């Protein structure tokens, strides 16, 4: 049981860190937003594993359902068009 938990932790930790790194490293802001969604969801999994189920639910509701949607809107509003790359210095 403890091993299974450790494996699950390691798995989701890898997902969390990888998608976080993806957020800051990818070229396209839109992809960053998507990676951010993955990272937030995997953090929610970590909450569940730490007996914080309510917090996990809130994480998904508030972050993925609210913050991420806002960011998505913003990203879409600020894209000049689909072909040119995103404003980035």
């Amino acid at each position, binding site marked *: 049981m403890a091993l299974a938990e450790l494996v699950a932790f390691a798995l989701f930790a890898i997902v969390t860190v990888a998608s976080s790194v993806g957020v800051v490293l990818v070229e396209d802001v839109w992809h960053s937003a998507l990676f951010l969604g993955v990272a937030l969801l995997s953090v929610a999994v970590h909450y569940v594993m730490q007996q914080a189920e309510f*917090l996990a639910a809130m994480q998904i509701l508030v972050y993925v359902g609210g913050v991420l949607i806002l960011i998505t809107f913003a990203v879409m509003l600020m894209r000049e068009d689909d072909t040119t790359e995103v404003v980035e210095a």
Partner: protein
Amino acid sequence: MAVDTSYYLILSAAVFCTGLFGILTRRNALLFLMSVELMLNAANINLVAFSQYYGNLTGQVFALFTMALAAAEVAVGIGIILVLYRNFEDVDVAEAATMRW
């Protein structure tokens, strides 16, 4: 039974440093916002981990507050970024230097 708390701390540090990395390397204001979200989440992971470590719910309640504030921060932050974009035709944080010196 549970995962060792220090693992969570390392995870939290990793996410936090990733967010910091984003802030240090990117110039897109939206990326800034996302990086800040990552850092806040790292803090939350920390809070929840210690909440479990001490068997005390305060950490979880604090994490809730953090979430609420993060949501508010994103709302205001995006408003600011929109105005920034409107005024500078850009979301590059280095461009908006009107108030410098």
